[in-house]
């Protein structure tokens, strides 16, 4: 019974949201807005559940001890500190300071590591010595060379080659992939709408 109720609610909400997209009607618009706002409210409560899970995981790890106990304590203090500051003094300079001088530099640091990870990943791919690795090597070198800012000093044809590469094969390839993704998105949504795929139940 519970399964059929969940399926019925999901399908009905999906159909109302879909009809709201195509039809302009005060009744449909009102119900579409109720469903959208309800989803937003449920998502907020889900966020609270997620934060409690995160706190519970790290409280347990801190209580058990071990070498990562300190890192778990730092996470708990930082999470609670930001939450309290955001609630008690949301417009204070302290919150802005923490974002500008702690959060953003940490984010930039982690992003900077990507360059090294990309190099190691590509190096491992080249070591495989197969056709795909050869194609990756040739195309990567070609794109890097033609993207250099002073490439025009060697030959004006390299600038034209760069323009052609970006406009024709790269764009064509990306559009082909995106077309497939769009079709996959349509049919995944149709499956959920017609309850063939039910990620919200046990089937």
């Amino acid at each position: 019974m519970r399964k059929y109720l969940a399926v019925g609610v999901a399908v009905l909400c999906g159909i109302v949201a879909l009809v709201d997209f195509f039809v302009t009607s005060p009744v449909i618009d009102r119900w579409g807005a109720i469903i959208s706002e309800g989803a937003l409210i449920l998502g907020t409560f889900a966020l609270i559940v997620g934060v409690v899970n995160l706190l519970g995981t790290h409280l347990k790890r801190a209580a058990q001890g071990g070498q990562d106990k300190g890192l778990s304590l730092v996470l708990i203090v930082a999470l609670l500190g930001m939450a309290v500051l955001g609630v008690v003094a949301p417009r204070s300079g302290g919150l802005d300071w923490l974002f500008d001088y702690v959060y953003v530099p940490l984010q930039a640091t982690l992003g900077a590591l990507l360059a090294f990870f990309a190099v190691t990943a590509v190096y491992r791919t080249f070591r495989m010595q197969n056709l795909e690795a050869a194609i990756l090597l040739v195309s990567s070198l070609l794109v890097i060379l033609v993207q250099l800012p002073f490439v025009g000093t060697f030959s004006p044809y390299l600038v034209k080659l760069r323009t052609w590469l970006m406009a024709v094969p790269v764009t064509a390839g990306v559009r082909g992939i995106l077309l497939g993704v769009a079709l996959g998105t349509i049919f995944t949504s149709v499956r959920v709408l017609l309850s063939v795929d039910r990620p919200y139940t046990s089937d």
Partner: protein
Amino acid sequence: MTTFIQVLDPYLPLSEDAAALVVLLIALLLFLVLTIRGRLRAQVTLRPIPAYERLEELASQAAESDRPIHVALGTGQLGTESTPEMVMGLTVLDYVARRASVCDQPIMATTGDAATFTAAQGIVRSAARDAGIEPEQDERAVVFYGPEPYAYAAGAADLESDCEPVALAMFGRWGAEGLWLSEAAGDADTPKVGGAAQPEAAALLQASLDDCVSGEELFAAGAYLHRRNHVGSLLAQDALRVVVALAIIVGAVFASV
């Protein structure tokens, strides 16, 4: 010179919404016809996708090793444009969770979205209940690391080093943090499979993972794993692709002639 499509234009007042509705109706029709036809036919042969074949092998390996597969769902959000990718990630988690529950093996999943976290918890508990065992109360079965991509990747990598899973399966919505996780997590011998629909992330993961799906292959997860009722939608997807390609060619000709 007036092109053919300019001659037709007054008779084809299709707005973008009307065109979208036409595509949706064609998709629905193809889906219903081919799903019913797929159920009536005994067997439909799909082309092999190495990532899903490897995932099946790893699921068997996990059952024998008493170590979980880490299913990383990424930081996409249910209820946004990344919903279909997250649904496919949950489909993969459902497959891994059911295989693990049958053998009473541990399950491990991470996500950066709260709604996906609650759905994943429900899937893990349903899989345990359907296998006839008490749902695992360990909160580390599914862990939420927050929507910030790098924070999620750092947390998931840390969990990998803590729990030492038998493999890493990254299915969902990924950005640059996917490369971060696949490189930083586990050791060089840990098998890593996964993929992304978006071309930018798929390119990064293709270089890093042992077996990778990209683009629309991500949406075939159910049909290749344990949801044979998805095969009809795969066939409909192929059919609609042909229709769209023909429409593009015909439209280009009409706009030129």
